[in-house]
């Protein structure tokens, strides 16, 4: 029996090669998309879920009201919080602070810039990052202990055993390797090449006892997960309590958030942490499910459209006594067979495209061939796909009345809403939603890209001031200018493309108590800031400590700051600190420029201060446009090598760094384009197949119409009209859905496009053209055929 079914299934596949191919190609692409999305979702959902003590690990959060009245929650916390929690709160078993930094790591002649993470000794005990060598109880106990990841150990020591060997950090301090960590899994948000004990922060002068300097993450391990609410209620006022005696008492409240929810529920919604990344996970689950469904719909439509050709087989089987149930099973078996073939192809396809997909989503996904779970899921997936695809056709086919079928009087019904039409409408509704989204997302990206940043990013590079750059900055600058490689240079707190620092608590003539909460973005310069960045000066002058020594406490404001401070004549006015006597003098006002997201409408008030008030972390250089940049950069490297020989010269182009601001949105855009393209492709495969059957079934009708005088155009449009109607119905259904989804999506951006009517008109046009293109081949073929052949009676 089974053999007979299998034989017929294979013969049917083979007999209708063209349609089997359409089905298999469509289904494999659909399944491959679903597998990719599934791998991605599985990774997203497993982020930080692998820690053995996961349910007891919490991340500390701050929460405070901003000047606008909105409550913000963020997880940068003061350095002193962690140790205080461990000593003063009995619920806490252990804690670790975490902050990244970069050091040049040296071994003999080998120098590598590696990413460090400062952690407390509790880190290895709290988190499940297993040590391959070393003892997690003691590995980070001493200030000069270092624990390397396997990969970093390999790149420093090759195949040598690194344990107990020494490495030099920043050309200054000797560290002893006390452990080697297994490489970080692909589902963690922690990033580092090696771990350093937190106590080393003290050695390099980064220790802060302040409760208002929020600079790092604090993780705690509670003794029991049930203690969470007790702990939260006790810890709420920790910062307020520790600052109430000070000159600048804080209003920040503290709470803890489960580590396992950190990634998926990390979006601030007025002080509450809600689904952030989870929204994307949900969105792509829906997209994945729909793409698979669309591929299944192809199968359903092609099978039922072909049904008349199989009606006879059904009739004969029924006449010889086969029950309906076993017919249903037979047809389901066929769809599952097809599903198996498609799955194998899909796996092949995924293997081929996975590395490209990884680049696209910025992950390191892989197919877990070696796990039993993967194969169990695969079997479930094949059965599910086969059942979805085969359910409707098998019940439809098996319900034929054998008498009618065998007498040839079986005729299909003519109804305005056949299941097939509904299914095609579903396919196109989904495709149209994706096309609309694609257009709106790419328009929004372009809108941001075209926004004037307010400064000249061209030929602007920056370096991080490692080693002796700061010490020799004047000499470096003069050398570069005299050799013609740059026009100007400036030493700053942070790259022009990044927001590193902000603060509040300023006072000025006419400021109120409320103004003390106004947040300012903080930057700094020694000189030539306006000139190097190509900013527009509106009033006053640039800061220049070399010409005006008093400029070490000078201040440049942006327009937004002047406005927020309500200053009528800002030049010469003083700005001081609440609870302190120091004052800065305003020497210039610049036009607003974008340092944060180009999709943020409002420009944050900005203070660019003289050298007393910032740490010169980076230096910017405006390359000389008169020379080519290869030459300019060669000179830059030479000069840096001369004054700072210990460190490799790593420069960053400002415009390249600015472009990373679009990475997230561009990734979303690319994914939507990818899946829209696949959806359209799969839908068109189905449409092509359907159009073929339709043309075959109507060959006689077309003949009659032609005999009666219908032109090729009339016949073609007759055949295409039916599909166009379905596409238009889909358009009507899809438009409000697409509008709603995109409206929600755009709500995350304050600088955004409005959704205009012409986008939908364009989408309708695209959908119509795609449909016509797909069905016209078959329609025209049918229309130009000689009617004599189709009407011949003998």
């Amino acid at each position: 029996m089974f053999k007979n079914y299998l034989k017929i299934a294979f013969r049917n596949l083979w007999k209708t090669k063209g349609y089997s191919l359409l089905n298999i190609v469509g289904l494999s692409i659909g399944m491959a998309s679903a597998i990719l999305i599934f791998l991605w979702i599985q990774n997203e959902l497993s982020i930080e879920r692998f820690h053995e003590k996961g349910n007891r690990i919490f991340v500390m959060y701050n929460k405070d009201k901003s000047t606008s009245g909105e409550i913000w929650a963020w997880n940068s916390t003061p350095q002193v919080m962690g140790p205080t929690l461990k000593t003063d709160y009995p619920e806490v078993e252990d804690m670790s602070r975490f902050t990244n930094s970069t050091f040049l790591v040296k071994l003999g002649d080998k120098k590598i810039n590696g990413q460090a993470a400062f952690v407390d000794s509790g880190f290895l005990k709290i988190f499940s990052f297993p040590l391959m060598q070393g003892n997690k109880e003691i590995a980070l106990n001493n200030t000069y202990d270092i624990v390397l990841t396997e990969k970093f150990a390999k790149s420093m020591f090759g195949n040598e055993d690194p344990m107990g060997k020494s490495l030099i950090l920043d050309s200054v301090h000797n560290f002893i390797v006390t452990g080697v960590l297994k490489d970080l899994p692909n589902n963690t948000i922690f990033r580092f090449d090696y771990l350093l004990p937190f106590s080393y922060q003290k050695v390099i002068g980064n220790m802060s006892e302040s409760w208002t300097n929020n600079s790092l993450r604090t993780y705690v391990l509670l003794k029991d997960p049930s203690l969470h609410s007790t702990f939260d209620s006790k810890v709420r006022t920790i910062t307020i309590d520790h600052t109430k005696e000070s000159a600048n008492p804080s209003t920040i409240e503290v709470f803890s958030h489960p580590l396992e929810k950190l990634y998926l529920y990390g979006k601030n919604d007025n002080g509450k942490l809600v689904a952030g990344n989870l929204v994307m996970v949900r969105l792509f689950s829906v997209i994945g499910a729909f793409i698979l469904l669309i591929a299944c719909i192809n199968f359903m439509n092609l099978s039922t459209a072909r049904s008349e050709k199989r009606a006879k087989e059904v009739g004969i089987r029924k006449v010889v006594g086969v029950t309906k149930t076993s017919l249903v099973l037979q047809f389901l078996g066929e769809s599952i067979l097809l599903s198996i073939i498609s799955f194998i192809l899909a796996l092949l396809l995924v293997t081929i495209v996975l590395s490209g997909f990884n680049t696209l989503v910025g992950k390191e996904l892989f197919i877990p061939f070696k796990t039993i779970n993967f194969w169990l899921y695969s079997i479930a997936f094949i059965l599910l796909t086969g059942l979805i695809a085969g359910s409707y056709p098998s019940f439809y086919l098996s319900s034929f009345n054998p008498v009618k079928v065998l007498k040839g009087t079986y005729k299909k019904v003519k109804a305005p809403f056949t299941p097939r039409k509904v299914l095609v409408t579903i396919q196109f509704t989904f495709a149209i939603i994706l096309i609309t989204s694609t257009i709106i997302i790419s328009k929004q990206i372009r809108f941001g890209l075209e926004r004037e940043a307010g400064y000249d990013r061209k030929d602007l590079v920056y370096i991080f001031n490692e080693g002796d750059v700061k010490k020799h900055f004047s000499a470096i600058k003069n050398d570069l200018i005299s050799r013609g490689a740059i026009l100007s240079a400036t030493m700053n707190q942070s790259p022009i493309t990044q927001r590193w620092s902000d603060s509040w608590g300023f006072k000025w003539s006419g400021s109120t108590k409320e103004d003390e909460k106004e947040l300012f973005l903080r930057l700094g310069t020694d000189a030539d800031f306006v000139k190097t960045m190509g900013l527009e000066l509106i009033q006053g002058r640039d800061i220049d400590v070399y010409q005006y020594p008093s400029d070490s406490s000078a201040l440049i404001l942006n327009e937004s700051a002047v406005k927020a401070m309500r200053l009528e004549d800002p030049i010469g006015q003083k700005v001081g600190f609440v609870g302190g006597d120091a004052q800065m003098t305003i020497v210039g006002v610049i036009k607003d420029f974008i340092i944060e997201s180009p999709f943020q409408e409002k420009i944050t008030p900005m203070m660019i201060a003289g050298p007393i008030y910032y740490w010169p972390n980076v230096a910017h250089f405006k390359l000389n446009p008169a020379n080519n940049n290869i030459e300019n950069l060669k000179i830059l490297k030479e000069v840096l090598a001369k004054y700072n020989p210990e460190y490799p010269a790593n420069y960053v182009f400002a415009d390249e760094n600015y472009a990373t601001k679009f990475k997230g949105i561009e990734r979303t855009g690319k994914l939507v384009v990818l899946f829209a393209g696949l959806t359209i492709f799969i839908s068109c495969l189905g449409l092509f197949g359907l159009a073929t059957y339709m043309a075959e079934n109507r060959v006689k009708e077309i003949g009659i119409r032609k005999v009666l005088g219908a032109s090729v155009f009339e016949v073609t449009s007759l055949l295409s009209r039916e599909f166009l109607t379905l596409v238009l119905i889909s358009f009507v259904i899809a438009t409000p859905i697409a509008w709603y989804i995109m409206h929600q999506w755009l709500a995350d951006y304050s600088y955004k496009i409005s959704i205009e009517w012409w986008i939908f008109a364009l989408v309708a046009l695209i959908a119509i053209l795609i449909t016509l293109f797909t069905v016209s081949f078959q329609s025209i073929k049918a229309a130009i055929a000689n009617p004599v052949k189709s009407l011949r009676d003998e």
Partner: protein
Amino acid sequence: MIKIQQLEKLYRTEEIETLVLNKISFEVKEGEFVAVMGPSGCGKSTLLNIIGLLDDCDGGSFFFNNIDVSKYNERKRSALRKKNIGFVFQSFNLIDELTVYENVELPLIYTKVKASERKERVEEVLQQMQIMHRRNHFPQQLSGGQQQRVAVARAVVNKPKLILADEPTGNLDSNNGNEVMQLLTELNQAGTTVIMVTHSEHDAHFSHKIIRMLDGQIVTENILL
């Protein structure tokens, strides 16, 4: 009306070439009723298709109303066909998805007759064929005779000068067959030229002239009076 000289038609397959029509010549005058007879495969349907401008010929000439149409392209043939020629087939060839009314209306749509006039003419011809009461039925709901009456109605609704009937009674019983022959005779008496392919001697005797064919050639031409 129709003048055919030395008409040839070849059918080619990969291996063989068959001469279906071998230098045929004959004439049909306006108002004539001609029956074409002969065994299966003798080329009579091919001849009818060529006269109906559905197929082209490989040699000879074909004059329709004194115009040589043998070199006409598809568009010109189609234009000439839809204005001048009506078809009746053995298997009726009605469109299953359309009602009786819509089937009959079809030729008028393709000749761009206005909607109001269409209604008038369709109803007139349905009355004439006595199937007005079935106007909203679908073809499958009718008997064979009724279906062929609808087909005839469709063939004449455009008031063609020529009706081509390919075994119009072949799928009908004798009563219904006679009715259809009666209809064709009436149309002919009203001035329409009729060319009919048939196997039936009985049907052939409704005509004025019988052309007998064998192996792609005309064997005899009998004038009946």
